[in-house]
């Protein structure tokens, strides 16, 4: 039973890679209105996306070449993962790992660099904020801009609204295996940003094992100055505190830097109006004079008397 299910999932995944991108057609069956809530329409549809009213046989677009290209790409990545070990850990010579004091993780130098980022706002829950991402001047920076609106959606259950965020996508290796950023050699996050004076939050997501921890995020504040001058922000990793689903946890611990998945910027300062944040680069550096392990007390909640 498990093997049948697994086989079904694998074959569905193979079919998914062969499909062509969805193009909406104007001619749809008129009686799809009656069947619009039928069982075959499953999955989450992001607000603002057009409804897909096609029949299931119309959605299948099988293409061998896409599958072949996918297999070739993944086998190439797998071979790379084996062969790079000869050069050194993670493909870089040992001297890099020993002497590297700074590393730039993201710099926005072309349209492809924006593909690594996902922008979201409270439109997902029915709010009215809008956030967009584009390349800044001379294609050398990225600009996150939009409008914040903290009017709560009128669905009867949401009380607060008004947030926008951009988050990096998790890197994947061969056969879509999850890869992580190993930043344990560094202890400071270094950003060069130009904001509009609003307080932002930087959120780092790490690899977790238990499903209880899937919403665990390590956060810290980014106070932007506004104005035409660039701002160099250096935040030690020891300052990041743990929160889960937005609530700061009592049981705090330091951010583990060996399996970082994503980094994101969130704005939720309840000030309606336009915003913008321009980012030049995001990097990490190693400051040997910063010896703090964790900035907050990890006291026991029920201490022994």
């Amino acid at each position, binding site marked *: 039973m498990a093997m049948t299910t697994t086989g079904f999932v694998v074959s569905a995944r193979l079919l998914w890679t062969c499909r062509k991108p969805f193009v909406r057609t104007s001619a749809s069956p008129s009686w799809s209105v009656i069947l619009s809530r039928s069982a075959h329409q499953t999955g989450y549809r992001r607000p603002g996306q057009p409804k897909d009213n096609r029949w299931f046989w119309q959605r299948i677009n099988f293409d061998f070449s896409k599958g072949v290209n996918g297999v070739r790409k993944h086998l190439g990545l797998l071979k790379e993962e084996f062969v790079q070990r000869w050069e050194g850990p993670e493909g870089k010579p040992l001297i890099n*790992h020993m002497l590297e004091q700074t590393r730039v993780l993201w710099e926005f130098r072309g349209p492809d660099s924006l593909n690594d980022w996902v922008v979201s706002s409270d439109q997902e829950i029915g709010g009215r904020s809008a956030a967009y991402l584009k390349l800044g001047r001379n294609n050398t920076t990225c600009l996150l801009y939009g409008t914040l609106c903290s009017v709560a959606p009128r669905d009867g259950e949401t009380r607060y609204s008004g947030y926008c965020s951009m988050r990096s996508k998790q890197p994947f290796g061969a056969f879509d295996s999850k890869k992580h950023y190993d930043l344990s050699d560094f202890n400071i996050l270094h950003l060069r940003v130009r904001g509009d004076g609003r307080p932002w939050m930087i959120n780092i997501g790490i690899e977790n094992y238990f499903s209880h921890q899937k919403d665990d995020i390590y956060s810290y504040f980014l106070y932007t100055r506004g104005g035409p001058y660039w701002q160099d922000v250096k935040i030690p990793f020891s300052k990041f505190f743990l929160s889960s689903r937005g609530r700061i946890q009592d049981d705090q611990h330091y951010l583990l830097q060996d399996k970082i998945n994503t980094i994101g910027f969130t704005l939720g300062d309840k000030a309606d109006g336009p915003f913008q944040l321009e980012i030049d680069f995001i990097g990490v550096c190693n400051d040997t004079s910063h010896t703090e392990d964790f900035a907050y007390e990890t006291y026991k909640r029920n201490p022994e008397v």
Partner: protein
Amino acid sequence: MNPYVLSILLISLGLGTTLTFMSSHWLLAWMGLEINTLAIIPLMAQKHHPRAVEATTKYFLIQATAAAMILFAASTNAWICGQWDINQMSHPLTSAMTMTALALKIGLAPLHLWLPEVLQGITLTTGLILSTWQKLAPLALIIQTANNTHPFLLTTLALCSTLVGGWGGLNQTQLRKILAYSSIAHLGWMILVSQMAPQMTIIALITYIVMTTAAFLMLNNINSTKIITLASAWTKAPALTALTCLVLLSLGGLPPLTGFMPKWLIIQELANQGLAATATIIALTALLSLYFYLRLTHALTLTLSPQITNATTPWRTPNKQPTLALSLFTIMATCLLPITPTIFTLMT
């Protein structure tokens, strides 16, 4: 941790291993293995960090699976052959199942995937216990059942382990993961010779425990878990740094250090048995492990990493950590090669 709780856990660890050593019945041996597993769980999780809890959970699931397989194999053997003796496992299916379960317990390739992640999540001291003490009981069972196991299975496990232990360690910058892959490679050497000369397995095991203990205690002394912190170890304890270099090369099996002894004796035994090709393959795979030990030595002693002036003065502060065990194991890890004939005579 409360000293009473700590003493109960450590005594339980000793009890479990001793129980497995002295047992001739599969159920008693299994019980000893389970006591070992349960006793080390609180030691691994005492930091309450998500990574430590993750490592503890993974370790528990793996060890419980392996123990269940051992129990199943022993029960099946009792059903087929009518007796529970450890030495009398005569059915090929049950002996293969037992060997696979024991390989999962100690982390032999291809059943090794849990070991680097688990070692990475725990402290160096607990990692030391995991790498040394927790290997004793399963290896005692392996030595007793190796004669009844198909040689192809043992050879495959051994050669896979040395290859994977070498190749996997090349990609690591975290020292605990490097020591995990080192453990996998050394266990491969032990398993290979267990079918023909079990006393060589015991010699290899004892020398591995000595060298690994020295390595872990040294890393604990300089509080280093990454290659980049190894590069600044010379500022904290210059003499210890030089000795760490020797211990790492001993782990790599270079003469005239202790680590050469088991490799030499095992290759000699394989050549006597007419297995020259196997001996060549395992010697070549040992070169992969040697590469990452040399890399650590290079980072430790042959380079000066960039640092500020203040960072060059920690050696002025006296180190208050106890060093008796460290000095003892370091001497044993580097100076035992000249008494190889004595050790060989004692063991055979």
